């Protein structure tokens, strides 16, 4: 189990090996990525691993993957490296979990999406909001008679910065999606699944 479900983490651990000891108690953001069979109720199983240890989930996203029937959970947590690794080991124990990995920011490509609702009059009267949209790589998703919806993708601090800039105009609603991330690992999910299939057939040599 350790060999397989662990593999990507093992690679990951070595890249930050030198700093593990020093960092292990320091709280920071980690992205936990979980590949699972698509089973109803599993989300509960995954989240109670966090609840039991009183670790707050900053954001969570569940989506399909390139492989049919396989889901990916992307969970953002703020905790120490040691806690993140222990949580991941517990998640791997869930029967329908195919693999669980913990990543530092540098080991992934990640993105978030934010939506902002602003009164339509603000783009009618002068072009301040419009230039904000333009200069911040955002776009206007919808224009209704009384409100507009602005969409912006980016990292948390970027979408938050946009929120701060829109604030003076009165933001009616603001929502940000969970983080989604893709690892820098070269392994393909299908290869990983094949290895899992083999590992699940190991019997004790008694």
């Amino acid at each position, binding site marked *: *189990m*350790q*060999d*397989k*479900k*662990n593999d990507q983490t093992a690679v990951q651990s070595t890249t930050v090996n030198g700093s593990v000891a020093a960092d292990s108690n320091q709280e920071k953001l980690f992205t936990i990525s979980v590949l*699972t*069979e698509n089973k109803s*109720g599993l989300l*509960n*199983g995954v989240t*109670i691993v966090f609840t*039991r240890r009183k670790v707050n989930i900053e954001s969570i996203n569940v989506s399909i993957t390139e492989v049919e029937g396989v889901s990916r959970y992307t969970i953002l947590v703020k905790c120490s490296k040691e806690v993140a690794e*222990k949580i991941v*080991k*517990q998640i*791997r*124990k869930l*029967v*329908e*979990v*195919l693999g669980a990995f913990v990543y530092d920011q540098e080991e992934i490509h990640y993105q978030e999406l934010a939506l902002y609702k602003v009164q339509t009059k603000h783009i009618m009267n002068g072009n301040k909001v419009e230039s904000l949209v333009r200069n911040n790589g955002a776009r206007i998703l919808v224009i209704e008679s009384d409100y507009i919806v602005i969409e912006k993708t980016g990292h948390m601090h970027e979408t938050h910065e946009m929120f701060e800039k829109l604030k003076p105009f009165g933001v009616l609603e603001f929502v940000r999606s969970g983080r989604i991330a893709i690892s820098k690992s070269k392994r393909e999910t299908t290869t990983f*699944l094949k290895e*899992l*299939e083999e*590992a*699940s*057939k*190991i*019997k*004790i*040599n*008694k």
Partner: protein
Amino acid sequence: METLLAKEIQKKVNNNQKVTGAEAVILSLLCEGVDVIFGYPGGAIMPIYDALYQYREELHHILVRHEQGAVHAAQGFARVSGRVGVCMATSGPGATNLITGIADAKIDSTPLVCITGQVASHLLGTDAFQETDVIGISMPVTKWNYQVTTVEEIPEVIAKAFYIAHSGRPGPVLIDITKDAQFAECEFKYKKCENIRSYHPVPKINHDHIQQAADLINQAERPYMLIGQGVILSEAEKELKTFVEKSGIPVASTLLGLSAFPPDHELYVGYLGMHGNYGANILTNECDVLIAIGMRFDDRVTGDLSTYAKQAKVLHIEIDPSEIDKNIKTDVAVNADAKEALALLTEKVNARTFPDWLAKFRDCDKLETEKVINNHIHPGDGAMKMGEVIHLISEKTKGEAVIVTDVGQHQMSTSRYYKFRSGKSNVTSGGLGTMGFALPAAFGAKLGAPDREVIAIIGDGGFQMTLQELGSIFQHKVPVKIVVLNNNFLGMVRQWQQLFFEKRYSSTEMVNPDFTTIVSGYDITAKKVTEREKLSETIDEMLAHQGPYFMEVVVEKEENVFPMVPSGACVTEIRLE
């Protein structure tokens, strides 16, 4: 039986005969070789009970008096037989009453399949009568759970349940089956589950890690080995003995590891933990290599982690990767089944002896015998002590009985003074510490090991938590022996109150009924021993008795179990008095 069953099933398949979901449940259990099941009927599981009626000869159902009794009995059954224990309950309160036992089985790695009935699928989420979200409730305390809502799923899900429950690190599984799925019909085919791609119960042996482990052991000057229940679960008792005898390493056991290694072996140095042996505890902080196998460094074993075995290199051999580095940082970890790892390690370790190191343990033993043990097992006059009762039972059964204990002082005394000489003989609630465990677990154990003597040793508090299970013993004529050590106190809590709460005995004194009168009402032979002179002959009478037998021993009211490592203290701060 199996061929009869196979024929019966084949007939149904050939005739394209459909079975109900309820019958599919029973046939699936029979296909898994189940012959005993513990349970309690109710509305949502009635179709399964109805199907059971037809197979009542093949599948013996033990009607308990409370669902908690069913799950503990299944645990007792599993622990002595090495097979999966099966229990059944209805929805709502039936299901919630199982939860304590399921949590107990989870923390003590006991393989169980628990089947609960559920309201019909169209009623799910409507707060229907006796509806409860048992999947949600049991999720944190099961190894796996699943709600069946369609009949076709039943055989496959039950096959999966058994596979998951017993493979790898065992644990409890719960299957919740809606009533409509029990009534609906399907064709029955059964195939045992052999693998699940997302589940890897058996780690692939890493031979480099085995080599590193062997190197660490071969360089050690004061190696010390701690064994846990993993040895019993992997049936590695023989491999352990061979390894220990070649390597010459002193061995100590956790509470659940007891009975994995013979206590009279020259390399056995005792029992670990809060009430464990003196040397076994303090010398943890003097060894240079600590070898832990199939154990999880529970806080009752380690005490204060920041002062635990800091001087030692730690080798952890463990099947569950999440246990490695969980409490204790390892220097070498071998993620493996105990049996496989021990066999491989035995080939690679040098044959050695450690007479000076072993002598240290023996010196500690001498001190403990003088200061504690003699007084507990040969107190002379005065009130009877728990230790002497256990010691006598141990002698008279030659350490060959299955001993089922509850939780508290009697449990710790049993762990200290019963000398287990056969494997799978120590059945106790370790991790969860569930009072009320012993009585139902004992009759479950007797059904799991009918040819062995099974003795439940219980305190007066725990006995009254599941006392109603005397009814199950009575109805099913289970010849189990019950010993209640009565001090009219919740003794362990009282001990803590005496030592750490200035003798403020808050709600620990028990005003008890006459137990022998109650037990006699169930037509079970019952004796009360108040005089030391009668103890030996009553134990003899109990052991010679054919049916169930109850013996109450009135013991010293304010006896303390020593040695004791105070909660959260360092293992070397163990107190002898």
